[in-house]
């Protein structure tokens, strides 16, 4: 056994939401805890810590992954997007409250896609990445896309609506962006 008092630490640098961030942590620090405790980015939520609930989902190099099933040391030098970073996406826009929101965030707000909001960061990262792959899902596909995330408030009907609405908003904004640059 490793002696607790002499547990090795590592300087871990991860690019989070476009900014290189460093903290000195033991090897056993989960990426989810690294984000929440060491970097104070508490948007990423932790539910089950065994990969089932999806609340901790972040984008690693653009792809959704469970941050509770990765060590911060392994994420060294990789690019992470947390829910806090979604509002910096090129298709994010200021909304009524003055905050910037990406299409998924805007759609969840419009369609009542959240109740307590605990599961929401995981849904938003998952849905954001999903729409990159499938920009106009059917209702059935939208349902399947979120099947890896659990919502204890059981708002699934509205979450499915939110995914479909997010796809619409995303398409509108892509068209606007194309119009602007033309």
């Amino acid at each position, binding site marked *: 056994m*490793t002696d607790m008092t002499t*547990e*090795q630490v590592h300087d871990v640098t991860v690019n989070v939401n476009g900014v290189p961030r460093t903290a000195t942590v033991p*090897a*056993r620090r989960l990426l989810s805890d690294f984000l929440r405790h060491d970097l104070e980015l508490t948007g990423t939520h932790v539910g089950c810590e065994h*990969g089932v609930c*999806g609340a901790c989902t972040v984008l690693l190099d653009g792809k*959704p992954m*469970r941050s509770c099933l990765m*060590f911060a040391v392994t994420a060294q030098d990789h690019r992470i997007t947390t829910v806090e970073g979604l509002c910096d996406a090129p298709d994010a826009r200021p909304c009524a409250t003055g905050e910037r929101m990406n299409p998924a965030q805007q759609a969840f707000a419009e369609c009542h896609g959240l109740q307590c909001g605990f599961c929401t960061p995981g849904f938003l990262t998952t849905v954001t990445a999903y729409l990159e792959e499938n920009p106009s899902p059917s209702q059935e596909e939208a349902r399947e896309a979120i099947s890896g995330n659990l919502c204890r408030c059981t708002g699934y009907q509205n979450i499915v609506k939110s995914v479909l609405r997010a796809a619409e908003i995303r398409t509108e904004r892509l068209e606007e962006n194309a119009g602007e640059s033309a």
Partner: protein
Amino acid sequence: MKPAPFVHHAPRSVEEAVSVLAQVGHDGKILAGGQSLIPVLNMRLASPAHLVDINRVTGIDQVEVGDDAVRVGALVRHAELEYHEGAYAALPLLRQALVNVAHPAIRNRGTTVGSIAHADAAGEMPAILALTGGVVEATGPRGAREIAAVDFFQGPLETSLAEDELAVAVRFPRFAPGTATAFAESARRHGDYALAGVAAAVTVRDGVITDARSSFVSVTDVPSVLDLTDVVGGSEPGTADWAAAAEAVRAHVEPEADIHATADYRRMLAGELARRVLCQAAENAATTKGSSDR
């Protein structure tokens, strides 16, 4: 919960990984995608003193499609193999099975080789290695060796890999011309571990079945292959006795009961899924005469 302390090793090459494994041996664990290992560490069901993290090892992240087999390196994530067009063309069974492995976020991280090394009989890819008659390429302090699937899976979560051996790659052999495959499983929610799953490969030549076999998910202790050629061989796909094949499958599997399903229900499911995938594979084999691309 959180993992117990461990020393993290981040080798950059297979040689370096093997030399670290030689030193830490029985007190060490290989960390690939971590999608099976980290939950176990988080729950403190295991607390190895050393983790040999292979995520930075170079040269083991390739999918190679050859004339005989699809070779998958230890760092190929499930999702990469799933989306690999060459691998799909050579062995459609890989994608047919992979879409059933967990959810996309887990497939983006978990590796196919890790899943086989983990040897969970509820996992899809161990069953696919068995059905293709695949091979695990292992390297350790005593050199390199190849282990055939039949010798690899020893018991529940138990393989013939030594503690200090690294699975560098697995090879899934391609099927003979005239073969088609199918996969189906039943899970409580798409992406969850299957209550029962069945993979089938059927070869049709000159209109008759010359070979039929299947392998199973979640209903046997150890991934195993059932040869059904005696039951349906010589018949035409449309008139073969698929009910008899399903009966042979029900007799072969040894499901266990848990809170989600009784053993009898899983046995019934395995039989019905087998009937469907065998029939489907046979029909596809008959319509894509002589081609191994389906």
